[in-house]
């Protein structure tokens, strides 16, 4: 399963080890971990709650992984995204890509993050001293995703 949406935390080292297990043709593993920061737009963040669209979220992530496989010569890709209420220092998302050479895994990993940020139905709500608020989509994320089209 290249895609998982879950409440539980994930173990980066174990996920990487599992993805490349037994494939001696892999020469490169690029990975990314997104983490809850204690500060967003100048305000202290106490908690961050992630909502998603069950069914569509998994489907869109699988489509994004399928696109990455078409565009780059990679062996495997994994996306794990948490939902529910998290706090600063908690892991949110993991993307891992394996390939023969580093260029492909780096590019595919960045592509997966950029597309996930702009196309997968997740929404963040954060609690700050000012109260709870939905996080706004960032124009810079759209720009990052547009690089690939």
């Amino acid at each position, binding site marked *: 399963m290249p895609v998982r949406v879950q409440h539980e935390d994930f173990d980066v080292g174990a996920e990487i080890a599992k993805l490349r297990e037994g494939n001696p043709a892999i020469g490169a593993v690029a990975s990314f971990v997104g983490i809850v920061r204690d500060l967003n737009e100048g305000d202290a963040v106490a908690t961050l709650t992630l909502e998603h*669209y069950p069914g569509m979220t998994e489907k869109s992530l699988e489509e994004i992984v399928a696109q990455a496989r078409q565009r780059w010569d990679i062996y495997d890709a994994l996306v794990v995204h948490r939902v529910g209420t998290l706090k600063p220092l908690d892991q949110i998302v993991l993307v891992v890509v394996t390939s023969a050479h580093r260029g492909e895994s780096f590019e595919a990993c960045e592509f997966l993050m950029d597309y996930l940020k702009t196309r997968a139905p997740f*929404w963040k709500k954060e609690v700050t001293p000012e109260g709870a608020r939905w996080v706004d*989509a960032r124009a810079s994320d759209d720009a990052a995703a547009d690089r690939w089209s």
Partner: protein
Amino acid sequence: MKANETQTATVKVLYFARLREALGKGEEEIVLPEGVDTVGALAGFLRSRGGAWAAELGVGKAVRVAVNQDMAAPETRISGGEEIAFFPPVTGG
């Protein structure tokens, strides 16, 4: 249009995140009114409820729509039986 066809033209409508909160519900069944055969027309029907519906789904609001879990456009056709979701721009990752 025959009476029994009209009866079956219902859609399941979902609302997420800021929209779910503002509209006060996450899900409802809607019997498509006559002439409502696109995503845009359905949004117009919802806006006609007034109040938060008019405000949240109004012009200038960044609202995304998915039909059967695929991103859709105002002109995407619907005919009953679909799952239609309205939500704000996504912010995961």
